[in-house]
């Protein structure tokens, strides 16, 4: 492995001078300086995968768009997070997420507490720009406390990551690929039969939509504990 010394780097976001540790990402430095970049698959405390492409930013001098969550900072770089081009791309990408599966808010447990819904408000997207697709999946309600509705899943993989990285169970993973990709337990077994699941419920708390929810809540009632993971990690570090 190549070891690099940590230094401080200075660069610009939207014309504002900012500094950050050389190993930090654009998103981390932006947050430290109260510059908002929309994110969806990102969750503080988990590894970054750059999958949803909502946090794409522009870098001056490069035609490529870089996700802020994985993009490392560079001395003197000029980052733009709020351009017309980015707005257009983000809206189209969000349209695709909405069009991919069934996101009917009115009947969803997460209505009013949904990150996908919030994102459409933030980006000013009233309807999907692309035709709706028709993939339908079976709901898994076999667990006594939790429900998995793949039709509301946006494949952000937060559940997979939290289960592996924080709980250490790796009960979730992805099955198949492309449009057919789903998150599954073990060998695509019903949740209740999973040998690996500890029923800790972290996956439910980090899920941005109504795909994973608690049983017994009705529409609009599922409020998730967003800061759970950061708190958990902080407690762990303190004990050491």
């Amino acid at each position, binding site marked *: 492995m190549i070891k690099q010394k940590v230094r401080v780097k200075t660069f610009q976001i939207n014309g504002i001078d900012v500094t950050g540790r050389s190993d930090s990402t654009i998103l981390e430095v932006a947050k430290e300086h109260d510059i908002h970049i929309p994110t969806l698959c990102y969750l503080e405390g988990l590894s970054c995968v750059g999958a949803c492409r909502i946090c794409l930013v522009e870098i001056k001098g490069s035609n490529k768009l870089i996700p802020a969550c994985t993009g490392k900072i560079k001395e003197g770089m000029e980052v733009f997070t709020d351009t017309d081009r980015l707005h257009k791309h983000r809206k189209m990408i969000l349209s695709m997420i909405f069009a991919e599966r069934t996101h009917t808010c009115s009947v969803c447990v997460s209505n009013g507490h949904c990150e996908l819904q919030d994102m459409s408000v933030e980006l000013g997207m009233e309807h999907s720009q692309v035709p709706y697709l028709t993939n339908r999946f079976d709901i898994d309600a076999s667990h006594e406390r939790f429900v998995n509705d793949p039709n509301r899943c946006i494949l952000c993989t937060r559940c997979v990551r939290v289960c592996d990285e924080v709980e250490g169970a790796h009960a979730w993973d*992805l099955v198949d690929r492309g449009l057919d990709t789903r998150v599954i*337990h*073990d*060998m695509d077994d019903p949740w209740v039969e999973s040998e690996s699941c500890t029923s800790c419920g972290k996956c439910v708390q980090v899920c941005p939509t109504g795909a994973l929810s608690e049983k017994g809540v009705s529409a609009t009632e599922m409020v998730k504990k967003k800061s759970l993971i950061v708190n958990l990690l902080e407690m762990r570090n303190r004990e050491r």
Partner: protein
Amino acid sequence: MSAPTDARYKMVERTMKKLGYKRSALIESLHTAQETFGYLDKPALKFIAKRLRLPLAKVYGVATFYHYFRLKPKGEHNVVVCMGTACYIKGAKEILHRLEKRYGIGAGETTEDGKLSLLTARCVGSCSLAPIAICDNKPKGKLTVEDAVENIEKALS
């Protein structure tokens, strides 16, 4: 496939041993298992997961990502129709369509009696023989839409 006491598991074990039971041996082990058993069923996948100390979900995720792996048994006979570009522009789609009609199954399916599996490949790399189908591992090249079904039937008998 029977329980992991099956002697054939030794083949899979040998691959894992050769690669030092490292987690990275997963895909090679899946290849050996499929070669040995014809397909990958859950007991085989669980066996590999256990021996390589890998989460079940991870093994299942990998096995379903790569389309070379089959999780269901193949038919007694099988036909792989190449759908690569060269074959495609020379009528592979129509040939596949006729085969689907002839055997009453879609691509990727096996007939009810387990006699025949109809499969497709993204490109078998024999573009000079396009359009081509592989019948029970024997390539049948330069097919025409008209004689493909007949030729394939002959190759399978």
